[in-house]
């Protein structure tokens, strides 16, 4: 019984770690996108601002979805909290 719980915990931890790693990757991409869009805007290339915003919205949606994954997987187990 205890071994089964540990296996579930380990699997869940892997899922959470992977999701958090992906959130960080998406966030770095979004930071780069924001600076690149700002540079283009300041250089007078305003046609890139709409695609920049749409891609940023997609990245945000991805972060939100991954947050839901983390929140679901990180719910406290029956036998006590795990961090």
């Amino acid at each position, binding site marked *: 019984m205890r071994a089964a719980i540990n296996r579930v915990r380990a699997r869940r931890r892997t899922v959470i770690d992977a999701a958090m790693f992906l959130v960080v990757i998406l966030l770095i991409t979004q930071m780069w996108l924001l600076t690149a*869009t*700002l540079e283009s805007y300041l250089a*007078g290339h*305003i046609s890139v*601002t709409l695609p920049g*915003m749409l891609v940023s919205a997609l990245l*945000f949606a991805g*972060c939100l979805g991954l*947050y839901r994954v983390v*929140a679901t997987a990180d719910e406290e187990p029956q036998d006590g909290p795990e961090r």
Partner: protein
Amino acid sequence: METPTGSSQKPLWSEEFSIQASEDKYVLRRQLTKFLVLTSFGMLAGNVWIWAKSLMRRDAPALPPMRIAGTDELAVGDVKLFSYPGPQDHGILVRVSADKFVAYSQKCTHLSCAVYYSKAHNRIECPCHDGYFSIEDGRVLQGPPPRPLPRIAIERRGNDLIAIGTPAHGAGA
């Protein structure tokens, strides 16, 4: 936790002070991820703000034309400083050849130092961090400036040079 009487019920103090100081120091993975997602929302808000600004720029009215110099005021290689469109928007006009005049914003795109024309090297230079710009189109030749020098559109009307727009008002980069 057991009470002194041996029962397994929580003591009264534990129910009333349910926050454990040691546990309070932890940041849950959920909380950290929530913070990262909020940061992501901030990035999105920034992109939306840039997009809104670009819409406003596209709908901005055209700038009024303004005479900035006469063609006979400058010899080849000479420079004239002017302000366009506002008194705080400084520009630099250079006569590159007998028939060619170019005008740029005088603010370096790195940290807004005032740039000058180097006749010896035929380029525009920023003295602060050695940023060099091409005199032909304002592109960055060297140094830290991240983007070209904004070009001010000018046209020749008889013997007058008229500024007619800036990149910020739809005159191109």
